[in-house]
């Protein structure tokens, strides 16, 4: 198993840096996701780790050894491409054998390893098929098997599920994650789908414009986002503004205690996730802010409400559909003080 360390890595294609001085330490066997909007430099970072692009500056170390000048074929990586990149003129078996042949693995060992990896991706019996004779999900698993059968130091995946339909995508998430845990291989996974990054990763690296905005566990990223951009990228969020007082912020939801240094009198933004909020009927007489239901969307397991607070601000709330409110209903909104997260001063 391999520890990967990226230090001040920069890539400039000639029009300003596409990746700007990023540093990540990836532990042995860790599953790390690079998450960010289109064009933020995820693929570029992955290509530099793989060796397809030269770094303009910075270091990439596998177990302490700088690999920046090591060519792709000597880096001992396994890579899964968005379009799978299976060799169309080779059968599944030949595709899987390719990397082993390059490593001069003996013939009978190639055969046993292919059998083992096919079993692992549940494709035993498909070895004589050509890629065009497989479904998208099966091709995906062959691509995964081809990257894993060489037992590489690290596994790199670039949006491997982007071409699958929603249901298959969710199945494959679990499949890849389980497989990665079993094999214990250090993995870097590129995606712009926050749900994918959250469910699969040990840690998520959120990138914007070539820079790292935050590195943390999925719950760090979701519950304690580093800034407004991160908070908005990893899910729905209500931004609640308030005046800073003595260790509190006065908001439409009342006074919220905050830790940390925030100059009194300034305006602060707080993040409040829609599912952190509770809706109660006015008749309950419970502790809450009065609000009016503007609209609601039912999606089976959940209901999304848009509400207008007494002060005129709107909030999104997501609840279980146990008690339903109709548009125009008056409700009480209860948001626990510990579910607010400070994002920084409002501009």
């Amino acid at each position: 198993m391999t520890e990967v360390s990226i230090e001040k890595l920069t890539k400039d294609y000639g029009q300003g840096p596409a990746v700007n001085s990023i540093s990540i330490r990836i532990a042995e066997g860790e599953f790390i996701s690079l998450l960010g909007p289109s064009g933020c430099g995820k693929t570029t970072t992955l290509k530099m780790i793989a060796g397809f692009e030269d770094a303009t500056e910075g270091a990439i170390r596998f177990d302490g050894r700088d690999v920046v000048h090591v060519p792709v074929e000597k880096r001992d990586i396994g890579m899964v491409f968005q379009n799978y990149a299976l060799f169309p003129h080779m059968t599944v078996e030949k595709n899987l054998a390719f990397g082993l042949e390059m490593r001069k693995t003996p013939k009978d060992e190639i055969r046993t390893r292919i059998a083992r990896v096919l079993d692992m991706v549940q494709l035993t019996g498909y070895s004589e098929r050509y890629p065009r004779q497989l479904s998208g999900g099966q091709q995906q698993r062959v691509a995964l098997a081809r990257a894993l059968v060489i037992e590489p130091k690290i596994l790199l995946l670039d949006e491997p599920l982007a071409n699958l339909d929603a249901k298959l995508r969710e199945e494959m998430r679990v499949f890849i994650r389980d497989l990665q845990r079993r094999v214990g291989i250090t993995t870097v996974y590129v995606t712009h789908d926050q749900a994918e990054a959250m469910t699969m990763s040990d840690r998520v690296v959120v990138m914007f414009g070539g820079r790292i905005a935050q590195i943390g566990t999925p719950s760090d990223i979701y519950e304690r986002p580093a800034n407004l951009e991160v908070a908005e990228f990893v899910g729905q969020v209500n931004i609640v503004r308030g005046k800073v007082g003595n260790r509190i912020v006065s908001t439409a939801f009342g006074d919220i205690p905050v830790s940390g240094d925030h100059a009194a009198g300034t305006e602060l933004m707080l993040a409040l996730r829609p599912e952190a909020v509770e809706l109660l009927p006015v008749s309950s007489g419970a502790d809450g802010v009065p609000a009016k239901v503007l609209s609601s969307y039912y999606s089976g397991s959940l209901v999304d409400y848009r509400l207008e607070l007494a002060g005129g601000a709107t909030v999104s709330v997501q609840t279980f559909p146990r008690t339903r409110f109709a548009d125009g209903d008056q409700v009480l909104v209860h948001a626990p003080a510990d579910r607010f997260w400070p994002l920084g001063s409002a501009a």
Partner: protein
Amino acid sequence: MNVPAKKRFGPLLLIAPAALLIGVFLVLPYLNIVLMSFRMPGQGTPYGPGFTFGNYGKFFSDFFYISQVINTLWIGFLTTFICLVLGYPVAWQLARGASAFRAVGYALVLSPLLVGIVIRSYGWTILLGNNGIINRTLTGWGIIDGPLPLMYNALGIIIALVHVFLPFMILPIMSAIQGIDPSLEAAARSLGASKVTSFRRITLPLSLPGIQAGCILVFVLSLSAYVTPSLIGGLRVKTMAVTVVDALIDTFQWPFGSALALMLSVTGAIIVVIFGRLTVMKWKA
């Protein structure tokens, strides 16, 4: 079941224009040539009354004609092979090279096609002739004593044919390489293949459809080429196409000329079919 007439004839109506085109421009002329090749030779007329196998008998009994088919095939093989060897690297550069080269390279590859084939072949006679530029320069520099035999032989014909047909090799190969997803080469590299190995195991086999198309095009065009061989080969080396035209125009033997033309077409077709069988790609749908 009773299918309404409209439904039954609808598809036929749709393919009718194409069928008519192929029929009028491809099948009918061919049938006419086949028919002609069985006619009696005429006296002072293109053909006489009645039918005969004699034209084919004449072909098979005179080794001169058979050897000429063989020569023509050899010229075709060599032209095709040389075009492939010279054309593939150019095609690769056009498909995968630096973008600055691609625009210029594409124009250069196409430029010979802008000049008529007669002009191009005359150009080669100026270069290759005994009193041509190459021989005069070499003699002038004292490198050779007498002129090198560059014209009026198979070598000259092949040189000129390669020049004339090179674009027909380059273009299909280029488009085949352009159709190969570059991430396949990247995948091969990630699996431990060097650039050379990745070319040999991935790019080359996947460009086979282009190679196949280019080879068939150049081979068929070389077999049927008339202008270039007649100008460069002169009276000394004749390809089958030249002999066919001689028979038709000089000696006015339409039936025999047709038989000769058909023998060349049939041999060429057999070779193309065998080539297609040998290079069949199982992985393609």
